[in-house]
C-alpha cells in the first residue's frame, strides 16, 4: 500500500469530519469557540505573527528618486511603501513605484547570461556562464583598448544618476572613450534649455506648489507623469486642503485633459503647440495692465507687443475674455506658479514656449519666493547625469556613427531605444553596422532581443547604488540604494559587472576602479560626503554614519541656497523671448488631426508594461486595461460615424497603426491622443503583443532650438476599419445620472 502522506491524512480528516466527525466537533465547537470560528480573521492570542524587516532604499521606476521602504519576510520582499524619512515622497508612493515587486519577481526576467546563436532578432539565445560572458566581453573590450580603439566603445544607458553614473563615466574614460550617453525618452530637454535661457542654469528648480495660491500649468501633468509626481501630489494636497481656509486654485491648459487637468479647477484647451503663445498673451495683458513694474519694464513691453490678446486668441483658440481673466487672476493671486510640460514639451517650439512660461514666473515676481520657484543648493555630489542625456538629434549622431561602422561595441543598459525612438531614426537598421551589441538588462526588451550578448542585471531591489533626486527638494539630500533581498536569479548588479570588466580588461582600468564590489565602491565614495559635508563628530565614525544613512534611507543637510536675485534679465535674454507658431509634420488637409502621444501613469514610457499589477491597473482617465486605444472627441467620432471599439487606422507620413477608438469627452475635436507604453514585441508575457506603440508613426520633427524630438508634432488621419473589438475597461456608465454620489452640490460646475 502506498504511504499516506501527512497532506492526504489531513484531507481524510477533513472529509471525515464532514460526516462522521460531526459529533466530536460539536463537542469541540461549544468549548473553543473563537479558535474554530475565526482562525483566518482574528488569530488566536498565542499566534505570533512573523516579524517583518524593513529596508530603506530608492525607487528607480522613474527619475523622481523617491525613497522606499521594502517590507521583507523570510528573505522575500513583500511590499514597497514610501520611506517616510525621505523628503521627496514623505512616505507616499505611486502605483508604479509599488509595482516594483513585480519587476523583482517577474517571471520573465533574464535568468542567466545569454549569447546569441541565430540571426540577430531571431530571439535565439543560449545560456552561458558569467565567466564566459565576462571573458568574452572583457577580451573584446581589452583588444579595442590595446588597439587604441577604445573610442569605438559606446555606452548608452537610461537616466542613471549618482555614483553608478560616475562609475560608468570612469570606466568609459579609462577605456579611452567619451561616448557615454543617456537616453531617456521622458527627459525634459526643453525645460532644461528654457531654464538655462531665463535662469542661466540648466537645472530644474523647486516648484513650490505647496505654498502657491495659483498654479497655472501649461500641459504639465504634475500629478501624473511630470518629473516628480508623488512630491507634487503631496504639495497639491497641501495646496487644496492643508492650509486652513485658503485653497489654492489650479488651472490647466492643454489640448487633452490629463489627470492634472481633471483635478484642476479650470481646464482650458488651446490649439496644440500654442501654449507658449498663450503665455505671451498673458504676459501682454500683465504688462499692459501694469502688473509688472520692474526696471526692465520697457524691454518687456517691447517683447510682448506682438502678442495682444486678440492676436493670441486667434492663434490659440482661447477667448480674449479668458486670456485677460487668467492674466488678472494670476497676478492677483500671488504667489502663483506657471509651469509647462507634457505636450508643451513635445512641439517644435517647445523651448520657446517654456521660456515664455518662465517669463510669466519672472513677471509675477515669484522667483525665489515661497509658493514660487526656489533654486536648489549644490547637491551632495555633482550630478553630471543631465549633461549626458542625448536628445533626438544627438541620438541621430550616434546612429550615424553606428551606420558608418564607427561603433565596435555598443553597451546598452536600462534603456530601450528600439521602443522609444521613432522608426524614422533607423536605429535598428544602424545596428547592422555594430559588430557587438551588448545588453545589460533585467528584461528581454526590444533592444535586448537584438543583442549579441546579454548580461542580466539585478533589479534595483537587489543592487547597490545611490541617488540624488532631481529636482531637489530645496536642500541637499542623497540616498543609498541597497539590496533588500538575495538575487532571485543568476544575475549581477551593473556595478559589479563594470568592476569585473575593468579587472578583466586590465591596464589602467583596475587602477581607476580598484574595487571588486559595488558596495565597497559606494562606501568609499560616501566617505567623501562624510568627511566634507558632515560636521565631524568624534564619537561617530564612518561606519556609524553609513549604518545610519542606510537605516534612514536618506542623508540630508540643513542648508538652503541663498536667493538668486533676478532683478533684471539682460536685454539680450528678453529679446530672445519669442514664440513662433508650431509646425507639424503632414499637411492639414490630408492629415486633419494632431496626434498627441502621452505618457501614462501606469507604463510611463513603456517600461512598466511588463508589470502585471500595472497592466491590471485601470488607466486613471479611461479605466482601460491591457490595451491601447485612440482617444477622440465624441463630436469628431459622431461626425465620422465612429463608436467605441471601432478599430481605427491611424496614418501619419511616417506610418500606420491600428487601434480601437475610445470616445474621450475632454479632448479637442481637432486632435487625437494615444497612450505610450503598449505595443511591445518583446518584454515578457505581460507586455508582449498587446496594443500598439504610437511612437512608431511619429514623424522625425525636432525642436527648433535644441533639436529634441517634437513628439507631439505629427499630424495623422484616421480611417474606420471594418473591425470592431470590445475595449476592456472597468467603467460602466461614467455619468452620475443625477445620483448624489459625489456630494450634493458637486453637480454644477
Amino acid at each position, binding site marked *: 500500500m502506498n504511504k499516506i502522506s501527512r497532506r492526504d491524512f489531513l484531507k481524510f480528516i477533513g472529509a471525515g469530519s464532514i460526516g462522521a466527525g460531526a459529533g466530536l466537533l460539536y463537542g469541540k465547537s461549544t468549548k473553543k469557540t473563537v479558535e474554530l470560528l475565526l482562525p483566518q480573521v482574528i488569530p488566536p492570542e498565542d499566534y505570533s505573527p512573523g516579524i517583518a524587516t524593513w529596508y530603506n532604499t530608492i525607487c528607480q521606476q522613474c527619475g523622481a528618486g523617491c525613497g522606499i521602504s521594502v517590507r521583507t519576510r523570510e528573505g522575500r520582499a513583500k511590499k514597497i511603501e514610501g520611506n517616510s524619512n525621505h523628503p521627496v515622497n514623505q512616505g507616499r*508612493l505611486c502605483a508604479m513605484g509599488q509595482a516594483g515587486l513585480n519587476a523583482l519577481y517577474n517571471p520573465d526576467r533574464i535568468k542567466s547570461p545569454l549569447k546569441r546563436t541565430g540571426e540577430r532578432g531571431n530571439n535565439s539565445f543560449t545560456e552561458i556562464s558569467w565567466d564566459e560572458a565576462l571573458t568574452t566581453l572583457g577580451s573584446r573590450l581589452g583588444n579595442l583598448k590595446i588597439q587604441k580603439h577604445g573610442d569605438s566603445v559606446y555606452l548608452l544607458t537610461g537616466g542613471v544618476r549618482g555614483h553608478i553614473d560616475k562609475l560608468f563615466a570612469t570606466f568609459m574614460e579609462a577605456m579611452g572613450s567619451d561616448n557615454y550617453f543617456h537616453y531617456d525618452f521622458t527627459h525634459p530637454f526643453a525645460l532644461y534649455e528654457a531654464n538655462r535661457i531665463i535662469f542661466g542654469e540648466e537645472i530644474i528648480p523647486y516648484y513650490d506648489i505647496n505654498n502657491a495660491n495659483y498654479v497655472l500649468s501649461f500641459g504639465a501633468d504634475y500629478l501624473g507623469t511630470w518629473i516628480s509626481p508623488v512630491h507634487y501630489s503631496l504639495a497639491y494636497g497641501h495646496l487644496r486642503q492643508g492650509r486652513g481656509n485658503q485653497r489654492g486654485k489650479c488651472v490647466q491648459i492643454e489640448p487633452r485633459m490629463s489627470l492634472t487637468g481633471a483635478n484642476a479647477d479650470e481646464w482650458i484647451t488651446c490649439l496644440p503647440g500654442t501654449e507658449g503663445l498663450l503665455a505671451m498673451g498673458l504676459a501682454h495683458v500683465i504688462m499692459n495692465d501694469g502688473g509688472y513694474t520692474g526696471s526692465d519694464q520697457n524691454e518687456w513691453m517691447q517683447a510682448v507687443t506682438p502678442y495682444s490678446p486678440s492676436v493670441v486668441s486667434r492663434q490659440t483658440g482661447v477667448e480674449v475674455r479668458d486670456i485677460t481673466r487668467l492674466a488678472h487672476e494670476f497676478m492677483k493671486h500671488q504667489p502663483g506658479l506657471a509651469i509647462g510640460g507634457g505636450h508643451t514639451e513635445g512641439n517644435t517650439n517647445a523651448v520657446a514656449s517654456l521660456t515664455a512660461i518662465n517669463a510669466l514666473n519672472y513677471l509675477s515676481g515669484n522667483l525665489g519666493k515661497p509658493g514660487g520657484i526656489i533654486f536648489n543648493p549644490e547637491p551632495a555630489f555633482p550630478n553630471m547625469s543631465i549633461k549626458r542625456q542625448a536628445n533626438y538629434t544627438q541620438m541621430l549622431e550616434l546612429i550615424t556613427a553606428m551606420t558608418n561602422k564607427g561603433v565596435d561595441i555598443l553597451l546598452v543598459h536600462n534603456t530601450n531605444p528600439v521602443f522609444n525612438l521613432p522608426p524614422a531614426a533607423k536605429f535598428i537598421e544602424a545596428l547592422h553596422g555594430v559588430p557587438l551589441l551588448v545588453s545589460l538588462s533585467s528584461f528581454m526588451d526590444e533592444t535586448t532581443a537584438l543583442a549579441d550578448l546579454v548580461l542580466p542585471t539585478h533589479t534595483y531591489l537587489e543592487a547597490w547604488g545611490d541617488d540624488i533626486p532631481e529636482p531637489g527638494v530645496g536642500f541637499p539630500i542623497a540616498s543609498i540604494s541597497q539590496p533588500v533581498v538575495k538575487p532571485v536569479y543568476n544575475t549581477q548588479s551593473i556595478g559589479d559587472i563594470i568592476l569585473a570588466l575593468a579587472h578583466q580588461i586590465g591596464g589602467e582600468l583596475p587602477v581607476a576602479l580598484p574595487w571588486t564590489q559595488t558596495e565597497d565602491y559606494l562606501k568609499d565614495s560616501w566617505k567623501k560626503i562624510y568627511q566634507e559635508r558632515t560636521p565631524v563628530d568624534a564619537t561617530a565614525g564612518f561606519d556609524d554614519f553609513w549604518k545610519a544613512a542606510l537605516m534612514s534611507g536618506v542623508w540630508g543637510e540643513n542648508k538652503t541656497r541663498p536667493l538668486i536675485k533676478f532683478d533684471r534679465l539682460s536685454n539680450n535674454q528678453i529679446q530672445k523671448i519669442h514664440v513662433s507658431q508650431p509646425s507639424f509634420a503632414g499637411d492639414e488637409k490630408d492629415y486633419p488631426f494632431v496626434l498627441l502621444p502621452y505618457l501614462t501613469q501606469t507604463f510611463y514610457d513603456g517600461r512598466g508594461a511588463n508589470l502585471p499589477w500595472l497592466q491590471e491597473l485601470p488607466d486613471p482617465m479611461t479605466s482601460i486595461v*491591457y490595451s491601447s486605444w485612440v482617444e477622440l472627441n465624441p463630436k469628431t467620432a459622431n461626425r465620422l460615424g465612429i463608436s467605441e471599439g471601432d478599430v481605427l487606422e491611424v496614418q501619419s507620413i511616417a506610418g500606420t497603426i491600428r487601434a480601437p477608438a475610445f470616445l474621450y469627452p475632454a479632448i479637442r475635436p481637432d486632435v487625437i491622443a494615444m497612450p505610450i507604453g503598449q505595443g511591445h514585441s518583446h518584454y515578457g508575457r505581460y507586455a508582449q503583443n498587446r496594443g500598439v506603440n504610437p511612437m512608431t508613426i511619429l514623424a522625425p520633427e525636432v525642436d527648433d532650438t535644441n533639436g529634441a524630438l517634437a513628439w507631439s508634432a505629427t499630424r495623422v488621419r484616421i480611417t474606420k476599419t471594418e473591425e470592431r473589438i470590445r475595449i476592456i475597461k472597468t467603467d460602466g456608465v461614467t455619468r452620475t445620472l443625477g445620483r448624489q454620489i459625489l456630494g450634493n452640490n458637486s453637480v454644477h460646475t
Partner: protein
Amino acid sequence: MGKMRDKLKQYLKPGYYEKYDYHWGMTIDLDRCTGCEACVVACQAENNLPIVGEKRFKERREIKWLRVERYWEGEYPNIKLRFIPMLCQHCDQAPCETPCPVAATYHNQDGLNTQIYNRCIGTRTCAVYCPYEVRYFNWFTYKWDEPLEQQLNPDVTVREKGVMEKCTFCIQRIRQAKDHAKDDGRRRVRDGEVTPACVQSCPTKAMVFGDLNDPNSRVSKMYKNPRGYKVLEELNTLPKIVYLKKADSDV
C-alpha cells in the same frame, strides 16, 4: 437570574453593540484625491489580490477591493472628471451581512464588516445586497506565475475559487498595531498607529483612518468637516467612510 435578563435584553437590542471596542472609520477627501490609483496597487500588494489576466478582465471578473470610480460632469469644453475611491464602507447597518446563510460575514467588536473566507459557501448574496458593489467573488482559483507568488503577504490568506472577498480595512495591520500596543503595555492603539495600505500610500494624504470612538483622533475631527457626506446615505446603511466633497475654489 438578573444577569440572564440583562443578557436577553442585550440580545433583543437592535444594533447589539452598546459600544465598539474601536470604531474604525475613514474619511476620503475628494478635494485632495487626484485619482492616481496608488491606493489600488497598494491594496493589491497588501492583500494578495490575484492577477486575473486580460481574459478575466474582459469578463469583468477583476478583483480590486478598492477601485476608483470616475464620473464626467458637463460637456466639452466645460467638462470635469471627478474621481471617487470606492471600497467597502464597513456599514454599521450593512445590508450584506444579514443575508449570508452561513454567517460568513458579520460585524465584529471593532465595528468592522468582516468576511470569513473559510466559512463562505459562495451564494454571492452579499454582493447582490451591497449597494456599493465592493464585494468581489473568486470565479476561479487564480494562480501567480512563478516566482510572483514569493511576494504574497504571509499575513493574509490566499482565497480559493467560490469565495467572496472584500476590503478588510487591512485587519492584519490593525491586529499588528493592537499587538504592538499590548507589547508596549498600552491598553489602546494610538491614533495614526494603524494605517491601511491605501491610506499609507496615498500621495495627497486624501485618506484618513482611525478610531471614531476617540473624539480627538484625526478621523473624528475630519468627520465633522462640513464638506463631509456619505455615499448613498439615503439607504441608511450607516457607512463608516465619510467623503469630503470637492471644494469650490476661493479664487
